[in-house]
């Protein structure tokens, strides 16, 4: 029922009932937004699984042989499957291109670390012939990958909560 009479015609004659209606409507919207925000974050296992997939891809470079040719594409498929799983479990499809809401600083630190560890791991593995260097680089990236995922999720939840 629409009771905000006079809204369209002007602000001057705002009655008390209208104000109460407006506040009630804002409260309803805030509750719905908070529920939505809580539901729209990824479950904890998503970030752990993503970190493990990344580790497996790095590990495959150390194992070598034919594994290198099918593990990285399989990893890409696994990430897509994980996204579909989260969508089915949570009932929400989140736009992950907006995941940098956690701030540029932490995300750039993570991507910088990713590039450095990949570069150093590849140099040691294939240049200096230090076996398992890529696997160690993947293992070192496991925790930061989980942490940055959780960080971005918490930032999104905070932002949405504040907006609500």
């Amino acid at each position, binding site marked *: *029922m*629409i009771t*905000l009479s006079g*809204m*369209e015609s002007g*602000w001057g004659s*705002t009655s*008390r009932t*209208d*104000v109460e209606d*407006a*506040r*009630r*409507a*804002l409260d*309803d*919207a*805030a*509750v*719905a*937004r908070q*529920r*939505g*925000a809580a*539901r*729209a974050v990824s479950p904890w296992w998503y970030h752990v699984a993503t970190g493990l997939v990344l580790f497996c891809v790095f590990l495959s470079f150390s194992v070598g042989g034919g594994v290198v040719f099918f593990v990285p594409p399989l990893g890409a498929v696994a990430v897509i499957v994980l996204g579909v799983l989260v*969508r089915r479990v*949570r*009932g*929400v*499809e*989140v*736009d992950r291109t907006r995941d940098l809401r956690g701030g540029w600083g932490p995300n750039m630190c993570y991507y910088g670390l990713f590039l450095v560890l990949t570069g150093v791991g590849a140099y040691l593995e294939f240049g200096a012939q230090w076996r398992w260097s890529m696997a160690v680089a993947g293992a070192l990236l496991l925790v930061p990958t989980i942490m940055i995922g959780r960080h971005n999720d918490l930032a999104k939840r905070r932002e*949405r909560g504040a907006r609500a």
Partner: protein
Amino acid sequence: MIEAVFDEVIHPSNRLQICAMLAEGGSWEFATVRDELGLSDSVLSKQVKVLRESGYVTVTKSPRNPRSRTWLALTAEGRRALEGHLTVLRRMAERSSPARTRENEQ
């Protein structure tokens, strides 16, 4: 820039809550919205139909499998309308702070 416009389509409580929830993500499964807002299937269907006809919400379902899940999403137009409507409500709520109300009563 958000245009503050009172939107009669969005304003009813259930529709406002549906839009507010959809605004928090990309696509939402029908059952998730129903459960989170505590609505029945028929009530949610009815409200979604109104929102869809106004171009505020899209409803997606696999054409091959009619029993598959139904997904709802807020359109860009729906997002603009929601933000505009919330802006109007906020302005209205701000216009009557407790001090102002007391002044009016005196």
